[in-house]
């Protein structure tokens, strides 16, 4: 699917950047399903092309704002707890949607992802394209490993993000597949 609306035109300057896409995995590997964002980021990193930069973060909002400030396309992946079925994949296009602040409160940070996005919006510092994947977790207790439903969702998000990466090449024409 060709997308020209939510994903804005990529500037010539950004195309020349080595890292066109920034992928941020968020979470704590010692808190069960909270580690799903980190796991996906690590898997993407294993086979990521040159135009993709993959980083891991704890979810502290100000650091997030800083890490995405030089990137035009940002994909953020984290666990969420909204009451939906474990393994549900939520997807937000930040330029067209507001993220409920309680959505990501399991990140444990008072100034977390939702706050960082809204503060960046207030200060006009949002990246040109910012997509957030939230994977509904089941268990956030101390421990390692993912619940089966979350593991399955992680594979699905991994496939979607890899597909996107493969279809956004550092080139000057501006047609991109939806993430």
């Amino acid at each position: 699917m060709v997308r020209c609306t939510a994903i804005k035109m990529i500037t010539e300057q950004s195309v020349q950047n080595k890292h066109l896409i920034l992928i941020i995995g968020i979470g704590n590997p010692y808190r069960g399903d909270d580690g799903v964002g980190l796991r996906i980021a690590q898997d993407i990193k294993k086979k990521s092309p040159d135009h993709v930069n993959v980083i891991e973060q704890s979810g502290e909002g100000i650091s997030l704002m800083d890490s995405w400030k030089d990137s035009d396309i940002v994909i953020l992946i984290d666990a969420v707890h909204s009451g939906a079925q474990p393994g549900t994949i939520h997807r937000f296009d930040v330029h067209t949607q507001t993220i409920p602040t309680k959505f990501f409160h399991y990140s444990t940070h008072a100034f977390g992802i939702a706050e960082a996005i809204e503060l960046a919006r207030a200060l006009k510092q949002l990246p040109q394209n910012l997509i957030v994947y939230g994977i509904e977790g089941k268990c956030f207790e101390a421990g390692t490993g993912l619940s089966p439903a979350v593991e399955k969702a992680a594979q699905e998000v991994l496939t979607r993000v890899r597909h996107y990466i493969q279809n956004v090449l550092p080139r000057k024409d501006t047609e991109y597949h939806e993430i």
Partner: protein
Amino acid sequence: MKSRTIKVDYLARVEGEGALYVKIKDNTVVDIKFKIFEPPRFFEAFLRGRTYNEAPDITARICGICPIAYQMSSVHAMEDAFGVAVDGQLRALRRLIYCGEWIESHVLHVYMLHAPDFLGYPDAIQMAKDHPDIVQRGLQLKKAGNDLVALLGGREIHPINVRVGGFYKVPTRQELAPVAEKLKWARDAALETVRWTATLHFPDFEQDYEFVALRHPEEYPFNEGRLVSNKGLDISVHDYDNHFIEEHVQHSNALHSVQKGRGSYFVGPLARYNLNFDKLSPLAQETARSVGLSNVCRNPFQSIIIRSVEVLYACDEALRIIEQYEKPDKPALEIKPHAAVGYGCTEAPRGILYHRYRIDDEGVILDAQIVPPTSQNQKTIENDLWQFIPQHIKLPNDQLTLQCEQAIRNYDPCISCATHFLKLTIDRV
């Protein structure tokens, strides 16, 4: 008879999640419970059977805001066990990385979490709409701390460069130079921050606290010193367990830490400042005095000014260390593990963080004890609420709730350190 309950499901703008329960009958407070649900026991159990050199990276995961504090307390405990003293430039680099963590943690709290309370905004996002320049200053100032931690720690979040005996890699003077440039700006911004926070309006509120902090003969404390208080405590970190005890309370899974036979105590920026004012840099002392602070501050609402003074000190101290820096020959001292018990206590942004480890001859951890600062302040926070709520009891529920939240935020409680998920509930019945 009239009774009311205040309920707040989530305590906003504290790290983690908190639960507060207040019960009021006939304008009298009859019950207050500040709840924390889960102690860091998982990490203590998780450390058993791991080797001594894994402790810094594992414990750093307890908190995304103060990982350096966990790394510092763990490496000092291990070095204490094995009889190693890290000194010279390696010791200075440890102070330097701790400066970075104080800057980022304090600035986050001052600008994003605490200031909206005083300026009447529900959060920093709303505050940014009216005061974009102030919020931008906070963001840039925090960045100076982030850069320092990223350079010395290998990366900003969950740094990986700290090890028992020193570091895996140490910077050159040239690598530190650009950070120093940013710190010069940060020092000016910190000075402005002190002046700005001092203009806020503070409730008149003081108690007869026992402040506890590290004290070192030559410097404002980060990693070393004796544990002292304003009421006569003066002990080695080795004696911590003889003087402090963690008590289980029914409404909280986190243990309340108390001084044996003496009760609650107060740790964090106010305690450090009150017990170590004379060790602040001349610029930090002079600035504190210029905004009307004396060398003792007992009002926890004014902790926002004291945090700002500590940010100023951390910038000043970081610049001093960088100016005198010479790259050490080796990034770390050699460690030869043997069976021993080691104790470490350092000044996390929120106060003293105690670690104790028992190690076997192979360097394997047999048991671990971790006491985070928020566990230690928990009882004092409850005590504050017992005093504070009666003074404001006539306020409507929503306003009283906000005031209670603000009183809790005075302590910058890092509930993700003390526990992980803490629900906050204020009830009026």
